[in-house]
């Protein structure tokens, strides 16, 4: 794999993960457990889709086949999507919504933190802006995990269930593949060992504070999103998200 190929892949992973998690949060519009949460969820979603746009724009320039950011977001089918499986998991209850957010936010935070020092200046710039947003996302989702874990008996049970359900998708966040390694070696992407270590450290710390039990480190992990092999959920997400672009392919302006 050349460095340029790896970079395109890597940018699509960043973009698609943001996009799909943002879309999942959009599904919650009007359905959050409190008005303050409506605002916060939409705010997080807005940040994520905004970041996705920045990554797509850069990716589109490198791919350079006439597709722009919108075409990348709205015209690729599931097997071409590179998002982490975690981000496409359904909202289920608010413990799952927040658990998904938390596991992703920890990964996202350390990734972006490292990317602010990327040898690729464009990436460093996008990451610097995104890091500010994601620092807030992480603070928020950690707080909710702690509230649920150390709240009522019911919230503890639900949050522990959420951790158990989502754990099998955490491996993909911190298990590097060739693309990750090429990016790390080029000084573009994060050091993969460090990322895994940081992720584990913070997740364990927060879960412990929340009186929750993490899954086993050697638990079976479900992976595949990074190379386009997704769970059955993604197809349905895209069918909805891409409908207008697909149904009106001749429309150039919206």
């Amino acid at each position: 794999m050349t460095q340029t190929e790896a970079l395109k892949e890597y940018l699509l992973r960043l973009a698609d993960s943001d996009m799909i998690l943002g879309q999942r949060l959009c599904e919650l519009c009007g359905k959050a457990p409190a008005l303050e949460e409506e605002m916060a969820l939409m705010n997080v979603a807005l940040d994520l889709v905004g970041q996705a746009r920045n990554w797509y724009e850069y990716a589109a320039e490198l791919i350079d086949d006439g597709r722009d950011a919108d075409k990348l977001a709205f015209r690729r089918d599931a097997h071409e999507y590179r998002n982490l499986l975690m981000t496409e998991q359904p909202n289920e209850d608010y413990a799952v919504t927040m658990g998904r957010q938390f596991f992703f936010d920890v990964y996202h935070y350390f990734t972006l933190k490292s990317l602010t020092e990327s040898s690729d200046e464009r990436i460093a710039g996008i990451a610097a802006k995104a890091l500010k947003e994601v620092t807030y996302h992480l603070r928020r989702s950690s707080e909710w995990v702690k509230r649920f874990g150390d709240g009522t008996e019911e919230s503890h049970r639900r949050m522990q269930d959420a951790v158990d359900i989502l754990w099998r998708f955490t491996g993909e966040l911190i298990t590097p593949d060739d693309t990750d390694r090429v990016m790390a070696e080029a000084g573009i992407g994060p050091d993969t060992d460090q990322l895994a270590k940081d992720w584990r450290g913070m997740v364990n710390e927060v879960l412990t504070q929340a009186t929750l039990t993490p899954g086993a480190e050697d638990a079976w992990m479900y992976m595949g999103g990074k190379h386009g092999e997704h769970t059955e959920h993604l197809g349905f997400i895209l069918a909805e998200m891409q409908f207008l672009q697909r149904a009106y392919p001749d429309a150039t302006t919206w």
Partner: protein
Amino acid sequence: MSPEERDFQEKVDAETKIEPKNWMPEGYRKTLIRQISQHAHSEVVGMLPEGNWVTRAPTLKRKLQLMAKIQDEAGHGLYLYSAMETLGADRDEEIEKLHQGKAKYSSIFNYPTLNWADMGAVGWLVDGAAIVNQVVLQRTSYGPYSRAMIRICKEESFHQRQGYQILLDMMREGTEEQKAMVQDAINRLWWPALMMFGPHDDESPNSQQSMAWKIKRKSNDELRQMFIDQTVPQLEFLGCTAPDPDLKWNEETGHYDFGEINWQEFYDVLKGNGPCNRERIKTRKNAIDEGAWVREAAVAYAEKQKQRAQAA
């Protein structure tokens, strides 16, 4: 009139804002609570017809705009409930009334959003009608409400321009299908937007007292006419038509004449017989009911944290 009442009315007449700590007639307080809570409910329920398209927005730019708008609306709701609470009302109680069908919200949100152009038309027509109301309410006599209106109006104007731009772009650069979406959206939302100003003045029994208290500052019919007069030129600029054969410029009055509203439909929707009344309330009620454990957890955790802080 008691001395307090006289004092109160003099303040109102002198355009001095009434503040939470001031004495106020019980009727004034109740009317305000009802009106501000309705307004807050409308912001919250109003997120739903937009939420219906936020997962299907056609471009990144439009998706981001719509998300930002929805976020603003949640913010407006919070801000208005706060203003309402300065009058001694309880947010949860008022929301409970909404879910039981006892409190109103703007009827326009009981209409479905059926194509993407509705996201433009809602911004242009619905936010547009809301602004006509709210611009006047910036001068309403109750201080916290007036200040809320000033803040909200600014954002709503932005939404309205954005909505209009969606339609304008589709009309100017869109395909025939997209243009048809725009006209279809206007056809469906035009009359409901006019209904937003409420019944004719002579059918609006509480209006006079509200005018005297300067809670209301213009009559329903006056506001509706203002809206029509500012909107029709924009409609023409779009190159679209209104579904009203009687709509035309009246040289004599300097206003647009327009056809009679279907008041039967207005009262039907008000009574709960609108296309989406059931769905809107059900969605909101489910959200709050199913979120009970979340709010309880937050309270329990905060309580534990407090105890730990005290113990330390």
